[in-house]
């Protein structure tokens, strides 16, 4: 397994299917089930790439879809700055929280001139990588509460 490190040299735990502790890749039935789930949660979300267990939302957002990352906190601490949601730019990331629980990460694709977030891409667990609006994610992900930007 490749070791992914922050710029401060700290390793960020992750895994790759089908190696332990990652799970196996989805079968055809599960892929269709995941597509149906996505439609139930947001019929307007557009699939960018098909459902898979190879990577999750944090892996997509902070590690170029390298694998499944359950604990992205070290990325935030070492390589990202937190900014007000109103200052969003393309290629920033929105974090969704339910109370104190980090539920989801999404990459900003399109923003208006006055900072309104129009389009994001994110991977919904094992579901597809999808294009959606700021509030167009499953309700269980909670609210978009934080904006982070990769430190230059």
């Amino acid at each position: 397994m490749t070791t992914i490190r922050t710029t401060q040299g700290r390793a960020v735990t992750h895994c790759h299917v089908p190696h332990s502790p990652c799970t196996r890749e989805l079968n055809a039935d599960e892929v269709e089930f995941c597509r149906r789930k996505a439609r139930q949660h947001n019929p307007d979300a557009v699939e960018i790439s098909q459902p898979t267990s190879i990577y999750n939302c944090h892996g997509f957002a902070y590690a170029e879809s390298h694998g499944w990352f359950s604990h992205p906190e070290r990325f935030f601490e070492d390589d990202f700055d937190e900014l007000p949601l109103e200052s969003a730019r393309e290629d920033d990331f929105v974090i969704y929280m339910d109370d104190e629980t980090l539920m989801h990460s999404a990459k900003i694709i399109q923003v208006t001139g006055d900072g309104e977030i129009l389009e994001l891409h994110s991977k919904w667990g094992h579901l597809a990588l999808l294009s959606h609006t700021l509030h167009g994610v499953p309700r269980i992900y909670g609210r978009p509460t934080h904006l982070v930007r990769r430190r230059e």
Partner: protein
Amino acid sequence: MENTDLTARIQAAIDRFSDREVYGELMLASSPAAAKKIAESLPGVKDLVAIGPDAGPAVQDLLNREATNDNQLTTIALYLLSRIPTDTRTTDSLARPLASQQFTGINAELAGEVFLNSLGQDVNQEDRYTTAVREAKKRIEQNPP
């Protein structure tokens, strides 16, 4: 009569989340913490937590049945074991599958967390799974079948 009612309540609660359309919501989880949030939101789960230790054997049965079968039902069983006070049977029942790395994905870390909690160990989330596997192997060596 009371026991019959309780058994029926426990089974009814399990039935509420046993539909794939319901437990399949766990496919949205990207981490153990997110999975726990989703699990606790599913119908029937809070009922079992409220019932408490009396639901423990049924939850343990669910885990034994699904551990090699369905990842999402296993997640629910592990979440419930993390919320329902149980005895050392939980520790012993998790040791072998953990040591043989039978749990996968989010369940691997959840099982590690439940196992370590039952031993009274609080371990950094980054190291939880590897620590749990190591401790599980130790426990098996100390308590051969």
